[in-house]
């Protein structure tokens, strides 16, 4: 899922400073699951903004709604009528959701309330870790299902660097060494032979380095 983190309240207030009629729009998919931008988080931010406005004796109207999936036009179109008539829309979705609303509502400013952080998984309740960088050429089949692109700080493809100590990465904290994990897992699977072949430098043109990416499925186009 896409993991995001709400922007600091001061930054959000700064972005909204000039507007009086504000619509907060959450997303019921990834950012809801990571407790950042679902209906509950929309309600909390709206409440905070109302309290801050009331304290500052300012008259602001804060409305709330959540779209099931903000990055898909069908879901946005379903409720488009409710998104008009505001001075500004503040999206609590990931960057894709924000841009979907900006494209769909060209006459209304659309602002982000969330910093989109990474593609990750829920390791345990409230604990999210980065596991994919969407590099466009998946190598998980070679490396035992553990991604050296996203989980190794140096994105190494031919073994660990010299900084791995006791299974931990030299960047510190509790970050595991991805290469320790790769070797442990391949040993368990009796597939260490996977690592005998030299892996040539990755073609990063399929990643973000090649510019904005696009996927077109002709068979799905109506």
């Amino acid at each position, binding site marked *: 899922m896409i993991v995001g983190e709400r922007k600091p309240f001061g930054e959000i207030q700064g972005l909204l400073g000039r507007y009086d009629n504000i619509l907060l729009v959450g997303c019921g998919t990834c950012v809801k699951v990571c407790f950042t931008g679902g209906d509950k988080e929309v309600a909390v931010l709206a409440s905070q903004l109302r309290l*801050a406005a009331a304290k500052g004796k300012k008259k602001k109207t804060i409305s709330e709604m959540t779209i099931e999936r903000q990055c898909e036009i069908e879901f946005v179109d379903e409720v488009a009528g409710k998104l008009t008539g505001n001075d500004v829309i503040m999206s609590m979705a990931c960057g894709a959701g924000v841009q979907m609303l900006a494209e769909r509502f060209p006459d209304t400013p659309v602002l982000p309330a969330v910093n989109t952080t990474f593609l990750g998984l829920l390791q345990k309740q409230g604990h999210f870790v980065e596991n994919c960088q969407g590099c466009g050429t998946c190598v998980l089949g070679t490396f035992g299902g553990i991604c050296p692109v996203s989980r190794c700080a140096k994105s190494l493809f031919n073994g660990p660097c010299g900084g791995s100590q006791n299974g931990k990465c030299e960047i510190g904290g509790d970050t595991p060494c991805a290469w320790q994990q790769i070797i442990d897992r391949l040993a368990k699977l009796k597939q260490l032979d996977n690592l005998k072949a030299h892996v040539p430098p990755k073609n990063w043109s399929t990643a973000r380095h090649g510019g904005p990416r696009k996927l077109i499925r002709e068979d799905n186009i109506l």
Partner: protein
Amino acid sequence: MGNLNITALCCSSALYEGLKPGEYSRAYVEGVQIIETPCSGKVDPIYLLKAFEKGADLVVVLACDQRLCTTLEGSKRIHKRIERTKLLLAEAGLEPERLVLRIVRRPALKSLDILFAGIKEATKELGPSPVGRNDR
């Protein structure tokens, strides 16, 4: 001070557990809006923020001791939620001290007057909420 608007979210087990039928009536303290919850674990930050939005000067949560929690882990969760809500309040410009958590001895029903008198005394410096009383 006497006019402070207090909203209290109270775990119903904390209020009544241990009392026999006929030994109790509905929890009531003059000047306090008491909202009963099935457990303090049901209390979400948005409930607390909404109470302040509605004009509460002080919001109190009454919870059971974690070891006695009828729903096993409910009261364990309230501590972190209170801390988080205090941060949210501070960001919005309200004093976090306006949110009070009390772990009470069950059944708290019989000692509510003393309990709230103590809370009022401990928070008397705060005065009315800066949010105003428009919605009251």
